[in-house]
């Protein structure tokens, strides 16, 4: 296999590289999952959130991980089978690290009902698994896997969705999202929406970060705005609405009120989407 030949040339063994990749995955799961592992609302949601919604979140995590693995993967993935394998490993790492940390923090006790134990671990495993997948790409990109690569349009939108989902999962469970929506007036929401869009476009196109995007000289600036930034913002808003719905923050709210909460959460989600385009 091409992968094995490349590894043999490196002088490192395949199992050695795999274990290192696992280590990076664990590090990523911990680093990116710890804020949520220590968020009180996530523990409570683990046992009170509607099981159908939790199930939906767990199910949707699977294609997300597979698509992310296809793009960034633990090792150089050459096809969907390796992507499925990497996604499964990432999910497993997410579950194990959540279980260990929650148990170590005393949040999983013997006298708790099984539903509560499983719910807490399952909910935390989603961001931890995304962290495990990202950990491999961010904490150890020693191969030039980004050189000469083409990303499809759908792939770009998916990356934005993944970034938005990650930050949404961080922030949506907390009470502060709803308190902000309750305290804001419509004018504040309007300004926040404009700022989100402007920051999204600026971070990716105008501020020349490494990983930033450019347009060929003959392309006017509004090409990227209409083709990427606006759809990216809609993706961020849809992801925010989904996260709020999963965590039962939108039930019984009127449309205007829900829209305010979605715009509030859309602010970090859109920055997450922009960051994903820069980093991934």
């Amino acid at each position, binding site marked *: 296999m091409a992968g094995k030949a490349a590894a043999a040339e490196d002088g490192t063994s395949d199992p050695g590289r795999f274990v290192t990749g696992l280590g990076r995955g664990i590090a990523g799961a911990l680093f990116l999952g710890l804020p949520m592992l220590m968020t009180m609302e996530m523990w409570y949601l683990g046992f009170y959130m509607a099981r159908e919604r939790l199930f939906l979140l767990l199910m949707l995590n699977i294609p997300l991980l597979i698509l992310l693995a296809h793009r960034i993967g633990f090792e150089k993935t050459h096809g969907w089978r390796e992507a499925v394998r990497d996604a499964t490993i990432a999910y497993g790492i997410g579950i194990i690290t959540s279980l260990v940390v929650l148990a170590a923090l005393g949040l999983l006790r013997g006298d708790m009902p099984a539903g509560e134990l499983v719910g807490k671990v399952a909910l935390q495993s989603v961001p931890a698994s995304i962290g495990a997948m990202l950990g491999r790409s961010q904490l150890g990109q020693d191969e030039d896997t980004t*050189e*000469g690569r083409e990303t499809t349009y759908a792939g770009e939108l998916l990356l934005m969705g993944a970034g938005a989902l990650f930050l949404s999962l961080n922030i949506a469970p907390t009470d502060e999202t*709803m308190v902000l929506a309750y305290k804001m007036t419509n004018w504040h929401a309007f300004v926040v929406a404009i700022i989100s869009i402007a920051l999204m476009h600026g971070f990716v196109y105008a501020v020349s970060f490494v990983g930033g995007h450019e347009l060929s000289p003959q392309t006017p600036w509004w090409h990227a705005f209409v083709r990427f930034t606006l759809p990216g913002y809609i993706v961020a808003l849809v992801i925010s609405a989904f996260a709020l719905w999963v965590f039962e923050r939108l039930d019984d709210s*009127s449309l205007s009120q829900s829209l305010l909460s979605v715009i509030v959460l859309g602010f970090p989600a859109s920055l997450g989407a922009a960051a994903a385009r820069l980093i991934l």
Partner: protein
Amino acid sequence: MTRSDKGRHRERHDPHWIEWLTGLLSALLVAGMLGWVGWEAFMKDATPPDLSIAVVATEPIASGHRVTFDIHNAGATTAASVTVVGRVLDGDRVIEENQVIFDYVAAESKSTGAFLFTSDLTGRQVDIHPAGYTDP
């Protein structure tokens, strides 16, 4: 389509029509959303919370009765720490009085709660009314 090279990514100049279609739809959605939010900012008065109760069900439970109710806030402002008082009345006499506190009842939305009464409710009236709130 985006091509990545040396840490920079370059968008194609000649994109597929679906990129334009997505961009156009997104532009319409964003414009619509901003238009709605802006229009409501102009047109809606910030009326204070207007709370009303609707009893949904009364069921017997092990320790007495559970009276489930919805609290509606018809105003344009959210009410926080909403105290709802529920009393079992026999004519003018108060047999039992309980309180339920809602963290928030959002503007133009509703929340659901329940009272657990230990007294017998036959032939008696149950009065549930909101008693106070704070600004969020």
